């Protein structure tokens, strides 16, 4: 049986996207009031973390 290789970049990307989605859900349900002052760092942090994770891990085989 072929064993699938663990892909840390997918794990990091999935977790930061979950975090971003949770932030947006909290805003949509009225729990928080998201402003651009917090949106920019949230989006940049998500994109930066994904790029960093992809860049620091090897190519998938």
């Amino acid at each position, binding site marked *: 049986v072929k064993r699938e290789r663990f*892909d840390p970049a*997918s794990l990091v990307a999935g977790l930061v996207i979950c975090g971003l*989605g949770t932030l*947006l859900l909290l805003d949509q349900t009225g729990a928080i009031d998201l402003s651009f002052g917090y949106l920019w760092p949230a989006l*940049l942090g998500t*994109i*930066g973390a994904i790029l960093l994770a992809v*860049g620091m891990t090897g190519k998938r085989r």
Partner: protein
Amino acid sequence: VAGGLGRYFDIDPIIFRIGFVVLTLAGGAGVLAYLASWVLVPADPEPGQPPADRSRAATIVGAAILVVAACVLLGRGFFFFAPPLIGLGLIAVVGVLLWRAAGGNENAASTAAKLGLALLLLVVAVAGFVAVGLGAAIGGGAAIAGVVIALGVALAVSAFLGGRRWLVLPALIIAVPLGFVAAAGIDVKGGGVGDRDYQPTTVADLQRGYKLGIGQMRLDLTHVDLPPGRTPLRLDMGIGSVRMVVPDDVCVASKVKVGAGYARMLDRDSGGLDVDWRQSPEQKAGVKRLVIDGDVGIGEIQVVNSRSGFTTWDNHRQFDNQFDRRFDTRVGSIDLSPGSDANAACTEAA
């Protein structure tokens, strides 16, 4: 130093270089850390090389974006660089994922295929941005945020099954426009689309609130004789312009929120992103007080009287009638000096 650390931890030494610079700029700790490492870390025989099969470009861009994100969050500037950087970051994510998906080959056929795929993705992304933005603006934001979380969970789970990195693209295409709609506070449901002109002549004609989804709303209250005391008025606009003229004998208090755009309330104005203020001027007893609660997603909200004027972005309008003229005759005549008397009704005798 960075090369030795990179080799020891098996990651690109550029990460350590960026870390040293950031720590140095953030208080000088980077200099001490570098000196300590220079003494303790053995020299790298092949300095500065990233580990094989890693992407240095993606690492550098990702680290740089994270540094800018931290600066924006901590209020250290870069605020105005954030929107274009998000666009560049999205392009970088798409480029890296496509490159990886194609296995990093550089022959002409694969390059053409990648370009074609990138163009197709661009078209899909633009259509997706618009569709998600509209869906969120008409009230589907919570469900869309749920989809983003579901994609994130699927991506994280896939890490143990070899990874499905392409899921990043739909997740970002959905999350970014939803974020814009959420931050701007755009709400167009139930408001309609078009131009609305209101010219009530009595207090009975005056509604407690006016709402428009997308378009232009103009209110002329100069013929309304408001009663002494507090009169609340709610103004809601998703995307567009709200302009209102009030009588000179009315004291205006305001709570204003504009996601992106411009707001003017008699002698006060502000523009840009996250315009948010509450103004409650002192007033004498018996004064007519109009309490405006204005909420605009993207656009402008302006309230003036004959002592102040609209800030206008178009000086060449044709006026069809007196109503139109009232909304554009006092072009740029606003006086924002501390002695401005545009809201003098608050302190004038009733």
